[in-house]
């Protein structure tokens, strides 16, 4: 079990030269136990806390990343979700600390894998490997963010050793939210000069190719295939199934590529060319769950170009949120759009959610054809205040939600 992939880290509290030295130390004496990656891709952070503004630095790092941290310092540091590595740094001590972080991350991943399997889901391991004795159906559900009250959290609660497990859990959830909702800050949405960043061209993405495939399939009455991805993706809208070898690990990165970078062809295929399989075949996925996830990974906080930011959005039918990947705020947004059509910008403001959650949720609901958007903002002329809910009841609801333990 020693041949792990290196832990992905970002470095903090080091100037350029120090960072360079440290990177060399990681590659050399520390035997490549970590590699430095761009911010946003890290599994853990390494923070030098002996600088002048250490306290501020720590807060700043924590604001951006709640996952595991390795803290380098001359003096012992007991900080939340972190492991202290004493200076002068010894390679074996660093490797040990990295090992601990990795064990936690792996335990966590396998807990989720176990949970997912228990629910009849596909989730690829950290190495993309997959035990094929497991037979599963719905790839899209693999990424359902784990409810906070999972085993992992219980473990974290029992774990008094710095709560690295809890941190790893948070990091994983955070990563999933980023994968679906991107990073755009609220300021960008309010800045008219940066409008273009809020939109994407669906026809230029895998999402567009899948939509096209569904039309082709419906028109021809046979399945359709999307080619050019490395592995074929076969859409069978009549059976509400999708057939493909590609799992999340492979499919997600494809959502960030344009069709210029990855040319995709769509064509109807005769039934005879469709692989014969049973519902227990793990390559047979739920079309709605995969399409939903592909839409989220494509949106990353954006909506299809041409979408109005103000015209009221209404939900025709609720998405099946027990079987689709949930992003934060999904329930609230669905409830609001179901009761009272509201524009994209106004939705975020009214519910106190980051705009990027609302935008991603919109794109996903639209991919499943669950929305109506009025042509203009006229119908919101009289924003009938949703029935005023008395304060005591609101606090009851809050406590019930806490109790139900889901985000």
């Amino acid at each position, binding site marked *: 079990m020693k041949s792990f992939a290196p832990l992905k880290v970002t470095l903090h509290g080091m100037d350029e030269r120090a960072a360079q030295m440290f990177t060399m130390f990681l590659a050399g004496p520390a035997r490549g136990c970590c590699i430095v990656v761009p911010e946003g891709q890290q599994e853990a952070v390494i923070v030098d806390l002996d600088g002048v503004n250490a306290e501020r630095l720590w807060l700043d790092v924590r604001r951006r990343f709640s996952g595991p941290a390795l803290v380098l310092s001359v003096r012992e540091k007991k900080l939340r979700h972190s492991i202290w590595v004493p200076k002068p740094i010894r390679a074996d001590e660093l490797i040990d600390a990295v090992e601990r972080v990795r064990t936690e991350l792996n335990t966590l991943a396998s807990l989720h894998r176990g949970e997912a399997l228990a629910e009849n889901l596909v989730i690829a391991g950290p190495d993309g490997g997959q035990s094929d004795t497991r037979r599963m159906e719905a790839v899209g559900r693999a990424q359902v963010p784990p409810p906070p009250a999972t085993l992992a959290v219980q473990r974290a609660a029992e774990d008094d050793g710095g709560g690295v497990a809890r941190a790893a859990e948070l990091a994983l959830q955070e990563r999933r939210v980023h994968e679906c909702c991107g990073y755009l800050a609220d300021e960008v949405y309010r800045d008219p000069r940066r409008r273009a960043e809020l939109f994407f061209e669906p026809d230029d993405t895998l999402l567009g190719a899948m939509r096209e495939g569904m039309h082709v399939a419906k028109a021809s009455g046979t399945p359709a295939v999307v080619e050019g991805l490395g592995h074929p993706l076969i859409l069978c809208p009549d059976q509400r199934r999708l057939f493909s070898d590609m799992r999340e690990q492979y499919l997600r990165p494809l959502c960030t590529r344009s069709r210029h970078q990855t040319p995709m062809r769509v064509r109807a295929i005769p039934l005879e060319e469709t692989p014969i399989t049973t519902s227990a075949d793990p390559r047979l996925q739920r079309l709605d769950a995969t399409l939903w996830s592909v839409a989220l990974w494509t949106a990353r906080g954006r909506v299809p170009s041409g979408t109005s930011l103000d015209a009221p959005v209404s939900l*025709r039918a*609720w998405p*099946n949120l027990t*079987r689709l990947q*949930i992003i934060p705020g999904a329930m609230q947004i669905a409830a609001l759009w*179901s009761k009272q059509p509201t524009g994209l910008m106004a939705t975020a403001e009214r519910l106190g959610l980051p705009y990027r959650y609302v935008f991603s949720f919109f794109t996903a609901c639209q991919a499943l054809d669950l929305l109506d958007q009025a042509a203009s903002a006229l119908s919101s002329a009289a924003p009938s205040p949703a029935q005023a809910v008395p304060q005591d009841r609101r606090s*009851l*609801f*809050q406590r019930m939600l806490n*109790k139900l333990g889901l985000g």
Partner: protein
Amino acid sequence: MAQYKIIFTGPVGAGKTTAIRTLSDIPIVSTDEDASDMTANRKPQTTVAMDYGLMKLDGNDRVHLYGTPGQERFDFMWEILTEGGLGLVLMLDNTRINPFQDMSFYINAFREFIDQTQLVIGVTRMDERPEPDLSRYNAHLASLGYKAPIFEVDARKKRDMALLVQALLYSIDPGIRNDG
């Protein structure tokens, strides 16, 4: 100490008793008896008066979970049970002969209560029979003049049931936050 309640209803075997057991913090109180009539070929036990479970919240508040008996001959209990309820969780079983007829039946029976509160629908046993799918449930609900969350659930799974109850709460008030 405030008291609130949520009502679970639906046809025989849809999973009401199971759902309440899944959500309750106390061992549930149930009036299940050995099923004597046609119910028996679906499962050995059926609820004759009601189910009762309890969710304990911080601050000592209590949310009472009541399940109606599924069999229609006990429908005199229904009105008593809904009095003062926050909303209705309708459980439907996808393997029944006509789950849409079940939906119509229960929505009509509880119409007054639903109109004053909120409805959510959980469809069970979709693992055993995936057809009809939820789009048909949504269409049928719309034809009855309602729009409400409809989720695929397994009454034995805490996550499914918690999400369904969450949808009920957010539907009553989309503005609540769960960060306390």
